[in-house]
């Protein structure tokens, strides 16, 4: 059984977390029988260039267990981020598995007006964009995904009581995917699969802030076909990677 955990980080971000080093992450993946993880480095929150470079090195040394996820910000060509064409070529060359944006934390609306240049680059590469779940931000996703129909958008760790936002998004937007690691409205995983198929769901743990036990309970005890479970645990992420430019 292959399991790809799409919601992990390294480095220090919060006072209470279970580990910060790559070796411990690899050991934890083994303990929870997780095949590989998509990981950003918390240093990238302070300085994207440094943190992303560090994550790239760690991923390169992990024997394929860790896939680098870059943290990017929309002010291209300024003090932190390179110009659009340079960024495009760099991403094409370095091939991170995904990108994390932090619009709420970094204080910008995620739309064409404020982030168009960055989103054009990511959409051209069909590079999955991972977003920490925020119900308010989701109101902008219909416009965002209309403006950038090639851009896969992954909502990380939506918690309980989000069904009135998640179901319309999954019903109407093919490129929106959801990390089901904390999707704890009872039976919602099965309902999503029944109504919209398993292709929208991915497995995430939230390590190192959470250990994977609870998320594994949801994914491995969901009453699904073996094919749907395999899609959620690893297949859908692989499909996104194969669809990249």
């Amino acid at each position, binding site marked *: *059984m292959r399991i790809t955990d799409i919601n992990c980080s390294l480095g220090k971000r*919060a006072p*209470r*977390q*279970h580990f910060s080093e790559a070796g411990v992450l690899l050991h934890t993946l083994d*303990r*929870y*029988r997780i095949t590989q993880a998509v990981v950003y480095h918390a240093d990238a929150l302070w300085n994207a260039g440094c943190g992303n470079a560090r994550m790239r090195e760690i991923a390169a040394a992990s024997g394929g267990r860790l896939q680098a996820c870059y943290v990017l910000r929309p002010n291209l060509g300024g003090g932190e981020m390179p110009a659009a064409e340079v960024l495009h070529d760099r991403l094409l060359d370095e091939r991170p598995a995904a990108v994390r944006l932090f619009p709420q934390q970094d204080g910008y609306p995620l739309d064409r007006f404020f982030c168009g240049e960055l989103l054009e680059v990511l959409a051209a590469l069909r590079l999955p964009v991972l977003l920490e779940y925020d119900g308010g931000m989701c109101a902008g996703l219909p416009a965002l995904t209309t403006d950038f129909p090639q851009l896969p958008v992954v909502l990380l760790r939506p*918690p*309980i*009581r*989000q*069904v*009135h936002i998640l179901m319309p998004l999954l019903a109407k937007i093919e490129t929106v995917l959801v990390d089901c690691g*904390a*999707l*704890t*409205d*009872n*039976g*919602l*995983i*099965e*309902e999503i699969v029944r109504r919209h198929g398993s292709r929208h769901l991915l497995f995430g743990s939230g390590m190192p*802030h*959470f*250990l*994977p*036990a*609870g*998320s*594994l*309970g*949801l994914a*491995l*005890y*969901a*009453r699904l076909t073996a094919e749907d479970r395999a899609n959620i645990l690893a297949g859908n992420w692989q499909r996104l990677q194969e669809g990249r430019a």
Partner: protein
Amino acid sequence: MSIRDDAFAGRPITVPIIDAHTHLLGYYLNGWYTAFQETATVITLMDHLGIDAIVTAPHTLVSGDAEATNEATIAAAAEYPGRIYGYIFVYPHDDLAIVRKIIARYAAHPSFVGFKLLPGYHGSLLAPAYAYALDFAAEHGCPVLTHLWGSSPGAAEVEAIVQTRPALKLLAAHQGGGSADCTDALVAVMREHPHVTMELCGSLYNHYALENLVEMVGDERIVYGSDLINLDPRYDFGQVVFSTLPDESKSKILAGNFLRLLEGSALGSIAIHGT
């Protein structure tokens, strides 16, 4: 075959399991959602996980209708004997005479094994009606499951009620209130009051893993609960069965500790295979 091996295979767990925090009946207020409402489906989900029995206070408790809630429990327990047990629910804004009558009537029914209080939703844990129920529970040796979320109510109110009732078997829900800070506050109370036990459900926001909780209070003072029907029981179930704790600890958390709380109780009891 270990519990963990069974869990990775998605098989029902074979050691006794009691879910000590559940609510039956559909509930959709304020964005809450469950994909099914029928108790029969709850039973199939229990079978899928290997849960032997649940202890419930149906969702009509939120609106404060004590009689409807307790009657719904009796109906469910009668429909699924040995699988569903109940907590007596009391509403703190009812007249004290009504509360006394409710307790007297339902404490005599064998399906009820303890009390469920919903402070926060229904105000302070220090309400007079709750004081009557807590005194009754302390005297009759049955557990009381109390809601705790954030600071509404918080550990200070827990401390206040156990301070004057040292024999009270208090089951503090949601690991103390759903966050690591709340857990820290509850653990401080638990260290001073040996009859306070932590219940697990709603752990999706808490950065402490079960291993941390066991390190803090020991494996004999934690009880598995899920908040089913709205919360998916599989998350908190996963916290236990996929944890790296030894099977002996898991067995205590999944049923043994709750069964121990029922020892010496004058209310109903739970019979599980192998216990």
